[in-house]
C-alpha cells in the first residue's frame, strides 16, 4: 500500500503550498483537514511500523521510519500542529501560516528520519522555517532576536553535520540508532542535540527568541524544536549518566531566572527549560520506566505548555501587554481564558487528575528505583519551583492579583476552541492515563494513582499553596513582582544553602566579565578584517600589475628553491 509509505512530512509540505495559494475560510478548512488526514493516516499504520529505504551516494537512506518511539512523537506533533494552526486561524499573514506548517512538517520529518543525513536536512529546515515565525513579528527586536536564534540553530546543524561525517567515516553507516558518548562523533552529535534541547549554557536562544515571536508563532515554537531534540536524545543517548546531571541542572536553574522575569512569556520559556530538564533526566536514567516517563512527559508537556502559551498569547493579543506588572484582574473580563489557563497551570504543576502528574511521577519513581536519591530530591525541589513560577505566578499575575483596570473581552473563537481542546486533553490524560500509556515505547503497567504518589504530590502542592495563601492573607505577599520573588523563594530557599545565591551571582558576574572580554576581542577581530577586506582594504585593493608579477616571482623562486635543493 503506497499510502502507508508516504512520509508524514509530505502532507504538511503540501499543506504549506496550499496555504500559500488559498485564502480565507477555504484555507482554514484545508489546513486543518490536511493535518487531520495526515494524523489519521499515521493512526492507521500497522502496529509493526513502516520503514522506507532509498539509495543515495553509496549509502542507505531511511527517510521514513515509524516505530513505537517515533510514532508517539508523531501523534503529539500532529495534535500540537492541529491546535497551533487552529489557534492561529484568525491571523491574516500568509508567511506565518506557511512557515508554521513547514516548521511542523520539518519536525515530523526529523522525528521519522531513520538515517543521519535525512535527520540533518530536517534539522536545518527546522531552524530556517522557525526563524520566520520570529521575524513575522516584524519588529526590529524580533529581527535581531531571530538572527541570533538562526545563527545558533544553524551552528547546531553544522556541529551535527560534523558529528555525522565523523560517525560515517568511523562506522561506515548512516543508520540513526543508539550512538552514545565516548567517541568524538558521539560528543559532537550530543552537543548538536543539546543546543536544540536547551542544555545549560546553550539555552539562551530559547529565552531570547521565544518571547519575541508572534502570539501564534510562540505556540508553534514551544511545541516542536525542543521536543524534537528530546526525541533525538531518547533515540541515541538513553542511559547516558551525564544526562541525569544535565537534566537535574536544567530542572533547577531556570527557577532562579524565571522569578526575576516580568515578561510572562519569558517566564514560560524558562519553565519550558525546567520541564525539559525532567525529560533529559529521565532519558539519562535510561530504564524502560524512565524513558517511558520522559516520552510521556514530552507528550503531555507539549499539550499543556502550548495551552499556557496560548492563554498568555490570548492575553497579549487582547490587551497588547504581557508584563506581569501591567496585568492583573483579567478574570473579570476573560473568565474562560482564566479557567483554561488554570487548567494548564494545574497540569504543569502536576496536580493529581491533571496530565502533568501521570508523566512526572514516572520519572520521579524511576529516579528513586535506580538509587538516585539526590536527583529525586532535586526534581522534587524543581517541582515546587514549577508550581511557584508557572502554576501560580502565571495565572495569578495575569488574571488575579491587583486589578490593572484593563477591560477587554474573550479572545477570538478559534483561539478559545484551540485552548479548550488542549485543556480537555490535559484533563483526559490526567484522568485516564492508560490512554497515554498504551502508546508508550515500552510496555508498562505503571499506576500513578497509588497512595504514596498521590499523597506525596498532594502534600507538596498543598503546602506550597497553603504557604502562598497564608502569606497572601498576612499581606506578606504583595502584588508587586519584585517583592514576590523573595517571599516565595523563602519556601524552598531553606533547602538550599544560602551560598547558592552568591554563587549564582558570582557566576553571573564572572560570566559577564568573560563575555565582555571575549566580545571585545571578537569585535576587534572583525574591525581588523573589515579594514583588511573592504574594497580598498589591503586584501581586496585593486593591485597594480607589478604587484601581481612580484607574487609570481616569489612563488617561482620558492618552488625552484624547494625543487633544486631538496630533490637531490
Amino acid at each position, binding site marked *: 500500500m503506497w499510502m502507508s509509505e508516504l512520509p508524514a512530512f509530505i502532507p504538511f509540505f503540501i499543506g504549506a503550498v496550499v496555504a500559500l495559494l488559498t485564502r480565507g475560510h477555504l484555507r482554514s478548512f484545508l489546513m486543518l483537514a490536511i493535518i487531520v488526514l495526515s494524523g489519521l493516516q499515521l493512526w492507521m499504520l500497522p502496529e509493526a511500523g513502516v520503514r522506507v529505504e532509498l539509495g*543515495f*551516494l553509496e549509502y542507505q537512506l531511511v527517510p521514513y521510519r515509524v516505530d513505537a518511539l517515533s510514532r508517539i512523537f508523531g501523534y503529539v506533533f500532529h495534535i500540537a500542529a492541529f491546535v497551533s494552526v487552529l489557534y492561529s486561524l484568525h491571523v491574516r499573514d500568509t508567511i506565518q501560516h506557511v512557515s508554521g506548517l513547514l516548521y511542523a512538517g520539518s519536525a515530523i520529518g526529523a522525528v521519522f528520519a531513520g538515517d543521519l*543525513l535525512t535527520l*540533518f*536536512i530536517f534539522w*536545518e529546515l527546522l531552524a530556517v522555517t522557525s526563524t520566520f515565525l520570529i521575524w513575522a513579528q516584524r519588529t526590529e527586536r524580533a529581527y535581531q532576536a531571530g538572527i541570533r536564534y538562526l545563527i545558533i540553530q*544553524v551552528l547546531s546543524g*553544522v556541529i551535527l*553535520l*560534523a558529528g555525522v*561525517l*565523523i560517525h*560515517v*567515516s568511523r562506522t561506515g553507516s548512516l543508520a540513526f540508532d543508539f550512538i552514545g558518548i565516548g567517541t*568524538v562523533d558521539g560528543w559532537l552529535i550530543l552537543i548538536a542535540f543539546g543546543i536544540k534541547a536547551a542544555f545549560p549554557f546553550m539555552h539562551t536562544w530559547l529565552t531570547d527568541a521565544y518571547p519575541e515571536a508572534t502570539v501564534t508563532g510562540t505556540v508553534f515554537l514551544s511545541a516542536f524544536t525542543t521536543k524534537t531534540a528530546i526525541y533525538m536524545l531518547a533515540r541515541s543517548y538513553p542511559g547516558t549518566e551525564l544526562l541525569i546531571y544535565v537534566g537535574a541542572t536544567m530542572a533547577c536553574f531556570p527557577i532562579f531566572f524565571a522569578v526575576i522575569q516580568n515578561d510572562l512569556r519569558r517566564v514560560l520559556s524558562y519553565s519550558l527549560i525546567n520541564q525539559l530538564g525532567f525529560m533529559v533526566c529521565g532519558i539519562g536514567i535510561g530504564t524502560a520506566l524512565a524513558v517511558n516517563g520522559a516520552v510521556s512527559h514530552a507528550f503531555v508537556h507539549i499539550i499543556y505548555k502550548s495551552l499556557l502559551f496560548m492563554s498568555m498569547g490570548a492575553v497579549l493579543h487582547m490587551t497588547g501587554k504581557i508584563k506581569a506588572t501591567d496585568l492583573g484582574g483579567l478574570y473579570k473580563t476573560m473568565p474562560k481564558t482564566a479557567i483554561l489557563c488554570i487548567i494548564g497551570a494545574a497540569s504543569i504543576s502536576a496536580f493529581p487528575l491533571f496530565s502533568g502528574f501521570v508523566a512526572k511521577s514516572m520519572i520521579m519513581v524511576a529516579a528513586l528505583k535506580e538509587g538516585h536519591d539526590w536527583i529525586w530530591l532535586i526534581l522534587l525541589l524543581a517541582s515546587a519551583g514549577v508550581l511557584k513560577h508557572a502554576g501560580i505566578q502565571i495565572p495569578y499575575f495575569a488574571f488575579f492579583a491587583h486589578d490593572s483596570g484593563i477591560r477587554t473581552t474573550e479572545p477570538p473563537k478559534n483561539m478559545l476552541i484551540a485552548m479548550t481542546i488542549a485543556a480537555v486533553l490535559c484533563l483526559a490524560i490526567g484522568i485516564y492515563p492508560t490512554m497515554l500509556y498504551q502508546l508508550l515505547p515500552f510496555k508498562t503497567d505503571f499506576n500513578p494513582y497509588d497512595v504514596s504518589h498521590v499523597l506525596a504530590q498532594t502534600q507538596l502542592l498543598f503546602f506550597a499553596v497553603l504557604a502562598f495563601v497564608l502569606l497572601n492573607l498576612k499581606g506578606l505577599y504583595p502584588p508587586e513582582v519584585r517583592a514576590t520573588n523573595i517571599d516565595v523563594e523563602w519556601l524552598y530557599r531553606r533547602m538550599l544553602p544560602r551560598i547558592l545565591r552568591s554563587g549564582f551571582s558570582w557566576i553571573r558576574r564572572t560570566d559577564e566579565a568573560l563575555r565582555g572580554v571575549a566580545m571585545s576581542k571578537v569585535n576587534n577581530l572583525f574591525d581588523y*578584517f*573589515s579594514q*583588511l*577586506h*573592504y*574594497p580598498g*582594504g589591503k*586584501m*581586496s585593493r*585593486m*593591485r597594480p*600589475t607589478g*604587484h*601581481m*608579477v612580484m*607574487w*609570481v616571482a616569489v*612563488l*617561482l623562486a620558492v*618552488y*625552484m628553491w*624547494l*625543487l*633544486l635543493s*631538496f*630533490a*637531490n
Partner: protein
Amino acid sequence: MIYHYPVLQVIIPLLGAPLCLFIRVPRLVGFFAVLVSSLSFLISCGLRQQVHLYGTIVYELGGWAAPWGIEYRIDQLNSYLLLLVSGISTIVLIAAQTSIKKELPENRHIFFYTSYLLCLTGLLGILATGDAFNVFVFLEISALSSYTMIALGTDRRALTASYQYLVMGTIGATFIIIGVGLMYMMTGTLNMYDLAQRLPEVYKSKTVLCAFGFFIVGVCLKLALFPLHLWLPNAYAFAPSIATAFLAATSTKVAVYLLIRYIFSVFGIDFVTTSLPLHDIFLVLGLIGIFATSISAIYQRNIKRIFAYSSVAQIGYMILGLAIGTELGLTATLLHLFNHALMKGTLFLAIGAVVYRIGSSQLNHFAGLGKKMPLTMAAIVAGGLSLIGVPLTVGFVSKWYLIVALLDKGWWPVAVLVLISSLLAVIYVWRVIEWIYFSQPRIILDDVREAPMSQLIPIWLLVLANLYFGVDTRLTVGVSKLAAQSLFGVTP
C-alpha cells in the same frame, strides 16, 4: 564520422568563429553561435557515450602517428569535462542573445560572438588534446579571446582589467611553454603519453625539475590559486555579464584540469611528491586562499566581485582535494570541478539577468528585487545555497566527498576548517539575500520586470541541474570515481 568526433569537437567552433565575421548580421550571429556550440555539445555527448562503452579513444590528427603527429586522447576525465564545458557554453549562449544585445553596442556583437567561439575552441582543445605543445596553442587561443571578451565590457575599467589579465595570462602561458620546452629538450617528445614514458629516465636532471617548477607556477596563475588570483576579481567584475558567466564556469576549471593532467599523466604522482612537498604547499595555499578570499567576498559591494572572490575560494577547495593526495581526494576535486561550474554558471547568469534589467551589479541596487524579479532572485538563492553546500544541492555532494576524503586521510582539523569556511559562505550569501529580500529599494524600480524568458530558461536549466545532480549523483560521482581511479592507475 564517429571516428572524427574528437577533432570535430574542436574544429567546429574554430571554423565557426571566422564565419561569424562573414555573417555580419548581429542577430544571426547569435543564433549561429548557439548552433555551433550545441553541435559541439552533441558531439561531446557522443564522445562521452563512446568512452563510457569502449574506454579511451585515441585519435591521430591527419593520420600522423604519435609521437610525431598530434594525438587527441579522450578518456574518462576529459570526456566528462568536455561535456561540461560545451554544455555550459551552450546554455550561456542562449541567455547571451538578449543580454549581449542590451549590454554591448551593436557594432561589437559580432566580435563578442567570434571571440566567444574562439574561447570555446581553446577550452575544448586544451581538454581534448594529448600533445603538450598543442595545449599551449589552445591555451593562448582561449586566453587571447577572453582578453578580448573582457575588454569589450562597457565599463572603462574593463580595459585595465583586461590588460592586467593579459599581462598575467601571458606570463602564465610563457611559464607553461618554458616548462614544455625544457621537457622537450630532455626527452625530444611533445606527446603527453610519450613524455610520461620517457621522463622517468631523466627525473634526476635539474632541467626536468625546473620544467616542473615553471609549469606549476604557470598553471597556478591560470587557475587563480591564491596568491596568484589578483587578476581574477577585476576581470570578472568588469567583463560583460555573459563573458563572466562563461569564464567563471569553465575557464579556471580547465586550468585545474590541466594541472591534474600534468601531475598525474605526464610527470607522474611519484615524481611530483618526491621532488616537491607539493601536497603541503597546496594544503597551505588552498586553506589560506579559502579563508582570505571568502572573507574578502563578505566585504565586497559589487555582487560580481562577491562571487568572483568566492570563485577563488572554491578553487581553494579543489586544490585542497588535490592536496589530500588520495583517490578520494581527487574524486572530491573532480566533483567540485563539475558542481562549481553549475553553481557559478547559475549565479552569474542570474546576475546577468539583473544587469539586463537594471544595468547595475552593485549590491545595494539589488534591494527590493525580490518582489520585482522573483524567479531570477530565487535562482540566486538556489545558487547561493548550493555554494554554501546545503543538502539536496550539488554543493553538498562535493563538500561531503571532500570532508569524507579529509577524514579518511585523518586530517580532521582541516575538515573542521572546511566546515567553518562554509559559514563564511553563509555570511556572504546571506548578505546578498538580505539586500534582495529585506531592504528598501535604493533606486527606482517601477519599470523593472522579471527577466525575459530567453534568460530565465537557461538560468533555471542550471538551477535544476544544481538540484538534479545534488540528488542523482550517478553521473558525477560515478565518472569522477572512474577518472580518479584511472589517474591513479596509470601512474608508473
